[in-house]
C-alpha cells in the first residue's frame, strides 16, 4: 500500500505529542534490517509511520517523536530487532486536553 507521508491530510494535525529529548525506540542491529528482513514490516504496521527506509544511508530511520505508543512495538518486528520502551512519565502521546490543539 502507498505511503502514509504522501497522504494529503495528515493525522498529525490532530495528534498531541510531547516528545522527550532522547529516543525511546532503537534498532538493535542495523545489519539485520539490511540482510535478514525482506519486507521491512515496521515501515507499514506502525500507524504513524515512525519507521521509514532511508535509501541514502541504507537503514531504517526512526522518527520517535511521531510514536503514539500503540504498543505494537516491539512485537511487530519479526526479528525482534526493535528496542522499545515507554517514554518518561508525562512525555509522549497525550489524548487528553484534545481541545488545546492549536
Amino acid at each position, binding site marked *: *500500500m*502507498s505511503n*502514509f507521508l504522501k*497522504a494529503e*491530510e495528515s*493525522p498529525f*494535525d*490532530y*495528534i498531541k505529542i*510531547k516528545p522527550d529529548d532522547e529516543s525511546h525506540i532503537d534498532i538493535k542491529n542495523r545489519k539485520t534490517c539490511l540482510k535478514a528482513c525482506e*519486507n521491512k*514490516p515496521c515501515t*507499514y*504496521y506502525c*500507524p*504513524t*509511520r515512525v519507521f521509514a527506509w532511508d535509501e541514502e544511508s541504507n537503514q531504517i530511520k526512526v522518527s520517535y517523536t511521531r510514536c*503514539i*505508543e*500503540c*504498543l*505494537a512495538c516491539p*512485537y*511487530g518486528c*519479526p526479528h525482534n530487532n526493535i528496542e522499545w*520502551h*515507554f517514554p*518518561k*512519565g*508525562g512525555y*509522549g*502521546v*497525550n*489524548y*487528553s*486536553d*484534545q481541545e488545546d490543539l492549536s
Partner: protein
Amino acid sequence: MGNDRYNVVIVGAGPAGSTAALLLAQNNLSVALIERGKKPGSKNMFGGSIYRKPTAKIIPGFWKEAPLERTIITDELWLMDRTSAVKAGFTGLKFNEEPYNKFSAIRSKFDPWFANQAVKAGAKLMTETLAVDLVYEKIGLLKKKVDGVKLDNGEVIYADVVLLAEGASANLTQKAGLRGSIEASSLTLYVKEELALPAKKIESRFNLEPGEGSNIGMIGYPTASVVGKGGLWTNQDSISIIVGGYLNQINSKGVSPYQLLTRFKEHPLIKRLISDAKPIAYKSHIIPKGGYESIPTLYDDGILVAGDAAMMVSGRRGTDIAMLSGLYAAETIAQARAAQDYTAKVLKGYKKRIMDSFFMKSIKKSKNSKQYYKEHPDADFLLTKAANDAAYRFFTVGIEASETKMKKIKDEIFGMQPTKKTLTDLYYGIQDWGIF
C-alpha cells in the same frame, strides 16, 4: 516526595487499577495509584462501549455523573462487501431507561473521572510517573517478596503488595517473571479516528433521539482480508470509527492500518454516515488476544496482575473484565491485610476468584474460535461475500417464481463451499464478534 510506604501500590490508572484503588481506599487501606500519562486516560483508547452492569457493581448509579457519550439503544452487525451490507441488529428503547445497558464513551474523558473517584475515597494518584521496576525483600533463606516499585526518577515506593494493572504492555508483569513473551499472532492492532459532527446530524443519520446512541460492528470489507473488524460508535457530537486486525496478518499482507482506515472511510455506506464530519483525533492501540493459554501467572509473593496485563479480554469486552479483575484483586488484598500475610499463600485466592468468573469461561471458550481463524483466515471474507451475493439475488425483483429463486440462492450458497464450513463460518464470525 520521599521513599514512601503504602499498603498497596497500583501500577496503571486504567479501569483495572482505578477500580482496585477505589475499593481498597474505601476499605481504609493506604493506596498509591501510579500513572505514566499526564492524566489517567491520556494514553488510552478503545472503541468503545462501557457496560452498565459490571461498572455499576463498582460505582452504583455511575451514569448519573460519569462523562459518558450516549446510551446505546441500537446494536448492529454488518457483513460488508464492496457495494452492499447484510445487516443484523436490534433496537431496544428500553435500553434508554434506567438502569440502561451500555454507553458509548471516550477514554480520555472517562478514565480521569473514574480515577478521581478513587482519589476522593483517599487514594493517592501520581501522574506523569512511570514505574520502571519492582523491588524485593528477602523472606526466608531462598524466597523473596515484592516490596514496592521503582520509578523513573529513581525513587522507590514501598508497599505490602503491588498490583500490576499496567495494560497490554505488561512490562513489569514480564519483569516479574509472571508472563512470557507474546507473539504478533496473539495481538490485534487497531486505529481509530474521532470525527466531529453536530448532535442533530448524528441523530437524524442514525435515527436516534437526543441522548440515544448506536453501535455498528462490521466484518468483511473493512479489514481487506486481514482477520479483524471495523466498528462505529456515535458519541454526543462526534463519531468514533475503528478498524484493525491481527498484527501478524497486517505484517504478512503488507497492510498499513492508516491506509485501512482511509479505505474504510471511503466505503460508500460509511462515507454517507460520516460526510461533513471533521477528524479531531487519531489514536491507536493493541489488544492482547492471546486467550486462555497466554494468561500469565496471576499472583506471587507480594504481587497480583489484573486487566489487560493479565490478557483478560474476551470478544468486545475488556474494560468490564478489567474492572471485575480489579474488584477481585481488591477483595483478595483486603483478606491478605486481615491475615497480615501478603505472600502467595493468601494471594492465590485471587486466582480462584478469576477462574470461577463468568468471563474466564468465555475466554476459555474463545480458544476454539482462535484456532479456527488460524486455520481459515479467509472465513469472514467468504462468509460476507456469500451473504451479500445471496442477498442481492434475494432482493432483486425478477420474474421467476420465488421458490425457483430461493432454490437457486440455496444452491449457490451451498455450492460455494462444503455446507458445514459455511455454517461454521457464520457461527465463529458471530462468536468472535462477541455479545451483541
